[in-house]
Structures are given as structure tokens and as C-alpha cells.
């Protein structure tokens, strides 16, 4: 396929690996922010081919993994109601809430349906006017414009049985939390190319300056990641702290103006919880103004529930903050597998634990 195959060329990858090896003079620790990037690094074995001085830390960029357990519990409560059709992106169905997951609610008779797009959820609302259709709208800036479009069209058409249970998170505040933590080890970021396709990277320039942190906006294919790593290593070696754009075939500095406009119309910025990490100031989005009537927490008067503390050996929070590797977890691959998981990073197709399970297994990756 055009724009995929040519970025998977093995000979070209080796040239970049040689260039990285030639540029590195001392150890560097870099974080690939997005879970899809983590999966590519492990799937193609790039993490094992990089010079030993280049250590990867896997970032929190897996929206399924960081959706707060309280909101998953709210989705489960809604899905259990006979008057509700709970509609979700497929990734969310097997993510554990505090007691169970959405798939088990479905098995118990709850009406839980999977969609590919937000507008499929809206279509279900039109098709079932006698039911309340709640769309479990999660995601980072990449997904927020698509979810916002559903609210815009529902408002225009006056659909009154469509609601959204939202968990929309913003990446730059999370990177700021990582960069400003006293125990931070990350020296440079590979920024998420599809988030930046929507937002551009002006916010990342502020991060680079304030935290003296070099950043390269990166794509997802092997050559993208290798080129971006090479660019980042060059910045680190030269002591530069800039934002460079490797994924320029999709990302512009100012982002996608239509996508930003619809997000701005529909959502307002709020403090938001991140599973395993905690509340990060100004790191989430909530429906605002005329669109607030679609907010399921209002329409169903859901309490801002706090999840009960549960005893678990799962170290998902430490993995999401880049402090521990998935293979450091005592449950990894034994009590916790993609089929029966204890933590969200094992079930999500973008989770770091799932990447290690599928591609590397114990001890294989640095």
C-alpha cells in the first residue's frame, strides 16, 4: 500500500540504524509518547536493534489505558440499564472497571454495541428513537474532532435520545507532568504524529523551551520512527531543544484548522483524571454550551463516583508513567494476559503490556 510499504524497507532501516549508532556518543533516554509507536518499535524489533546507549521509555499515549476506572464504571452502570444502548469503540469493551468490564455486561444481557465511528453511534440513535443511546466517547486530540462532529450533527438534527459519556484527554499537559516530575528520566520526546495532525505543535514548542526538552513529531512506520530517533539523538548530542517535524507528510505546525474549530465549538478544557497517573490540570475536554445537554453524566445524573481501592499486583500506573517496564510486573504473562487482564495496558491494542506480550515476551526487550 502506498505511504505504508515504502516506510517499511529493511535496507533503509539499516542505514538509519547505522546513522544513529554513528551519532550517539553517550547514553540517552527517550520516550515515544504514543502506544502505536510503542507497538511499531516492538513489532519490528527496532528497540532491540538500536544502539545500547539509546533507551526507550514507553509513554502514556494509550487513551484506552488512561481512561479513568470511575468513568468505565459509569459506562458499565449505564450499559446495565434496560432503557440504554451503550455504544463504544471496540477497544473499550474488555478494559476492566473496578468489578467487571463492558463485555461481561453484554453477556449478562446489557445492550452494548461496538462501532467504528462516532457517526455510527448517532445512526443507532436515529434507528432506535425509543431507546437512549449513549456513546462512550473516549480518546486523545486525534479522536476528539470526530466525536465532536457527532454532537454537532445531533444538535443540528435535534436528536434527543443521543448522549455522550466522554473521557477526552489532552497530550501536552501529560508530557508537562512527566517533564516536570522530580524523578523524570526522559531526555527527549517522540511526539505523537496523529495527535499533532489535529493540533499542530505550537504547544510542544513551549514544552521544549520551558523544560529544555528536544521533541521530534514522529510517524508510526519503522522508517518514520528510525528517522525521528536519529533526529532526536542529533538534537540531544548537539544540546539543542527544538521541535522538529519528521511526520511532515501529515502534520503542519498549525494543525488542522477545521478539526480544531469543531473541538473548540463543542468542548471546553477541564482538569481530568488519568488512570494510573491521577488528576492532571487542564488535561481533559468536556461538552460545553448547547452541547452540554448531550453529556450523559448530566442527563442520567451520574455521580462523580470514586472507584473503590482494589488490591492488585498490577503495576499499570508505573508502566504508564514510564517508571517500570511491563515485564517487571509479577503478573505479566501469567495472571495477566490479553485474554484475562488485570490492567488496561494488557488489553488495549496500543497498551505497552500487550506490545511486550505479543512481540517481545519476558526479558527480550530492554
Amino acid at each position, binding site marked *: 500500500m502506498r505511504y505504508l510499504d515504502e516506510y517499511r524497507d529493511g535496507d533503509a532501516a539499516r542505514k538509519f540504524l547505522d546513522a544513529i549508532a554513528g551519532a550517539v556518543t553517550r547514553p540517552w533516554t527517550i520516550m515515544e509518547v504514543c502506544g502505536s509507536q510503542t507497538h511499531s518499535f516492538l513489532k519490528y524489533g527496532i528497540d532491540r536493534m538500536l544502539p545500547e546507549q539509546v533507551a526507550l521509555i514507553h509513554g502514556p499515549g494509550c487513551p484506552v489505558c488512561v481512561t479513568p476506572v470511575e468513568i468505565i464504571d459509569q459506562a458499565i452502570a449505564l450499559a446495565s440499564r434496560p432503557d440504554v444502548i451503550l455504544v463504544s469503540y471496540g477497544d473499550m469493551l474488555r478494559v476492566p472497571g473496578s468489578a467487571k468490564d463492558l463485555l461481561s455486561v453484554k453477556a449478562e444481557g446489557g445492550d452494548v454495541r461496538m462501532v467504528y465511528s462516532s457517526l455510527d453511534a448517532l445512526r443507532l440513535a436515529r434507528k432506535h428513537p425509543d431507546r437512549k443511546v449513549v456513546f462512550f466517547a473516549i480518546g486523545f486530540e486525534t479522536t476528539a474532532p470526530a466525536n465532536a462532529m457527532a454532537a454537532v450533527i445531533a444538535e443540528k438534527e435535534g436528536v434527543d435520545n443521543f448522549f455522550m459519556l466522554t473521557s477526552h484527554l489532552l497530550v501536552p499537559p501529560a508530557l508537562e507532568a512527566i517533564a516536570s516530575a522530580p524523578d523524570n528520566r526522559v531526555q527527549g520526546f517522540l511526539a505523537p504524529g496523529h495527535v499533532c495532525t489535529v493540533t499542530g505543535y505550537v504547544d510542544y514548542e513551549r514544552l521544549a523551551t520551558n523544560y529544555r526538552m528536544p521533541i521530534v513529531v514522529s510517524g508510526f512506520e519503522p522508517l518514520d520512527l528510525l528517522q525521528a530517533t536519529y533526529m532526536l539523538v542529533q538534537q540531544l548530542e548537539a544540546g539543542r531543544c527544538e521541535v522538529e517535524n519528521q511526520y*511532515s507528510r501529515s502534520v503542519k505546525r498549525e494543525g488542522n484548522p477545521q478539526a480544531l474549530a469543531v473541538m473548540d465549538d463543542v468542548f471546553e478544557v477541564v482538569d481530568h483524571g488519568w488512570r494510573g497517573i491521577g488528576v492532571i490540570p487542564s488535561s481533559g475536554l468536556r461538552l460545553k454550551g448547547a452541547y452540554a445537554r448531550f453529556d450523559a453524566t448530566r442527563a442520567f445524573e451520574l455521580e462523580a463516583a470514586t472507584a473503590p481501592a482494589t488490591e492488585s499486583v498490577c503495576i499499570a500506573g508505573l508502566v504508564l508513567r514510564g517508571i517500570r517496564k511491563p515485564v517487571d510486573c509479577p503478573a505479566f504473562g501469567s495472571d495477566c494476559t490479553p485474554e484475562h487482564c488485570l490492567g488496561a495496558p494488557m488489553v488495549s491494542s496500543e497498551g505497552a503490556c500487550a506490545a511486550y506480550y505479543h512481540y517481545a515476551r519476558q526479558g527480550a526487550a530492554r
Partner: protein
Amino acid sequence: MCLGIPGEIVSIEESEQLRTAKVRFGGAMRDVYLDLVPDAQIGDYVIVHVGFALSKIDAEEAGNVFEMLRKLGEEP
């Protein structure tokens, strides 16, 4: 979740609410909403995420990886 797949626009349909396209991904064809990339035309490649095109692929910029590789090859 933030998966974005490149595909080629083969036809476009305008309705009152939405601008939709048939987009080819290798052998598969899918309906994609073009409202976030209003200037996309037939023959353009777009990055598609949860049914929406998020960007038009810039064919010139797409070569920058190979341009850098060429320069690396020239260095002694």
C-alpha cells in the same frame, strides 16, 4: 486508538450535512467523512481515523525520509 491509515479517495458524495468519500485502502474500500479536510479531492491520499479523514498527505513532504537517506549515503 490513534491509528491513522492512508488511503486514496476514489469518489466523493456531497449531502446536506456531510461530505463523504469512497476511500481505497489496498484492496478494501470504505466510506470516509471529509468534513475535516474540505479541500480533499479525488486522487488525494488522506489519513483516516475512526471514519474521518484528518489530513491530506503531502506528496512532496512524504519524500523527506528518502531525501535524508540519500544525504546520509553521500557522507563519507
